[in-house]
Every structure is written in structure tokens, then in C-alpha cells.
């Protein structure tokens, strides 16, 4: 292995370790987003985002009667993290949801996205839909 490659590998390992062990309080949502991407930001700050959404809904008296959770949105085509979504439903079902799979289709100028709560984050392997869970909100990230 070339010295440069070895250095890169070590740097990558350090970044990954930091991503795994940095406490949430030590890093802001923006920093986490820029440094480690959507997947990490949602994993660490999901509860905070969920709470923000529930407050937004409660201010209008539109809070959901049940359990909510924020999970990443994964593109069905590439498996990449492309955003986050709040899912809502009975606690036992919401707990099974690991992500929302997003598929897209176009008909003329109309672009439609289907959003499916799934129990497996590997959407390239197949879609394991969690029935009985709905989508309550979308979260867009500006990277």
C-alpha cells in the first residue's frame, strides 16, 4: 500500500470513529449534516427533528394521535440518503420502521414520488413495507 493511500485510509477510519462516538451534544445538527451526511444527522438528531415537527403540528392543533418517528428517506434507485420523513402510526409498527423508500415516476411534466415506510435500510435488496404506518412530514436538508 502506498504511503498516501495508507494515510487516506487512516483518515477515513478516524472520521468513521468520530462519527460513531461523538456525543450528540458536542456537535450541532448543521455540523453533523455537513461533516457526516444525512444518515448520521437523522440517526443522532432524529428525536430533536421529530420533536420540532410535533411542536409545529401542535401549534395548529393538528398533532397526530399515536407515535411518530423521524427516519431517513432512501432513494430506491441508488440506495442513497436523500432526506428524512416523519412516520406515524401505532407504536409497535412505528418501531419497526427504519427508513422511507422513495421511488419516482414521471408522466409528461408530472413527477410523482411514492414514499414507502420500510423495515430494512437496504432498499436495493428489496422493499420490506411496514403496513399501517403513514407519512406525516418531510424534512429537507440543505447541504
Amino acid at each position, binding site marked *: 500500500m502506498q504511503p498516501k493511500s495508507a494515510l487516506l485510509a487512516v483518515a477515513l477510519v478516524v472520521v468513521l470513529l468520530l462519527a460513531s462516538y461523538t456525543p450528540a451534544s458536542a456537535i*450541532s445538527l448543521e455540523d453533523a449534516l455537513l461533516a457526516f451526511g444525512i444518515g448520521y444527522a437523522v440517526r443522532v438528531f432524529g428525536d430533536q427533528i421529530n420533536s420540532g415537527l410535533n411542536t409545529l403540528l401542535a401549534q395548529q392543533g393538528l398533532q397526530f394521535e399515536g407515535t411518530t418517528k423521524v427516519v431517513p428517506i432512501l432513494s430506491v434507485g441508488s440506495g442513497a440518503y436523500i432526506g428524512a420523513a416523519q412516520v406515524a402510526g401505532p407504536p409497535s409498527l412505528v418501531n419497526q420502521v427504519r427508513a422511507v423508500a422513495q421511488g419516482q415516476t414521471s408522466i409528461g411534466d*408530472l*413527477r410523482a414520488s411514492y414514499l414507502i415506510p420500510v423495515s430494512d435500510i437496504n432498499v436495493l435488496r428489496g422493499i420490506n413495507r411496514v403496513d399501517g404506518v*403513514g407519512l406525516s412530514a418531510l*424534512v429537507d436538508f440543505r447541504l
Partner: protein
Amino acid sequence: MKRYMPLAVVIVFVTLAAGVYALDFTSRVRTVDGISVGEVVLGDQVPIRIRYSAGGLGPGERAEVMANRLSQIDNLQPADITVGRVGPYWAVLARGQLIATADPMHADANRTSTYGLAIQWRNQLRTAISQQTGSPTPPLGAGSDGQALYPRTAQKVVPIISVGSGLRIGAAIVAGSSQQVARVNAVAQLEGQLGSRVRLRALVPIDTENIVGNLRRVPGTSVIGVADIDL
């Protein structure tokens, strides 16, 4: 004529007694794991068990109210017990009269939704009544109110309306039970911001396109897709 009068009275009385009866629902309070629990009892069955207070009533009082409501209905049959909406909540009804409200605390404790809890209580009541009266329980999947155990589902495309501007900013596909989806007229989008890089968009199925008035969520429905039109 006078001679047959007592006989006529007896016949009328026996006929009435045979045709009209009320089941003897009772309630009791038990202590389970140090917590006071109210139970609705019919024979040796406990169709409803109440652990939490609501509406200023403790578990025992709630169970007593439910038992009294059930005892006041004559000739109660399993098929008379149904599930329906009472205000914002799912509830168990007997011939359309409120018996028990399925509250979120009991739903969470039973790891189900309030609708699922109402169905569970309905089925337990039907079973208990069936054992007392000998009448068969209605088949799973349909109640006498025509409400399916697993309601028929439907999907619909409705406009997304921004609560801030009132503009139509896209379209959403909503799904849920056919009955509830039919009530959805739009999806209200509420927007918020978390820091400088996170934009929140809550999507709420509502029953009107007039978002200036009170927004009312249509329960039992949710968004399953969004559509944009390239302008």
C-alpha cells in the same frame, strides 16, 4: 270473563319476561401489581379492563359507568356491539350508544392504535355476550354497522395547500379507509425551520380546502406520495 283475567295477566307477563331481558354486567376493582384496575364483568368473562383514569373518573368508576350503560340495553346481542367515532375518538358502541372510549393511554399500553383498541374491546364484548346468550358472534371482518375489521382502503390525489400562503403548491396521494379518504379534500402543508439547513414540511390530510378557518385533520388517513408539476 273475570275468571280468565288472572290467566291473561300471567300470559302477558310471561310473554314480556321472555322477550325483554338485560344482561347483568357488573364492575369490580382489583389491585394488580399495586395498581388499582377497574374491570367490566359479564359472567366469568372480563371483556374490558381499565387501568387509567379519564374525564375525572378513576379506573373503577369508568368500569362501573361502562357496566351500567351495557346493563341498561335490553336484549343485547353480539352484533349490537360496534365501533364508531365519537368526536375525535374511536369508541365502542352498543346500538349506537356510547359504551367505552378508546383512549390513547390504553391503546399505547396494549401496543395498538385507538382504533385497534376499540376493535379489541368490541370483539371481547361480543364473545362475552355470545357466551351468555348463546347467540353467535358476527364473522370477523364485518360488524352490524357495516364497519369492516380491516376497513376497505382507498387512495386519492388532492392538492397540497401551503398554510402560510394559501397557494396550491403540489399534489399528494393520500390513503386510508375508503370512508375516511372520501372526506379528505386537501393536504395542508405547515412549514418550519430547524437551524439554517433543515426545512420541515408537515403534511396533514384535511377535510376542507379553506385553510383560513379551523384546520381539522382527517384521522385514519396519511400521505403516501407527493407529485410535482414542472412549470
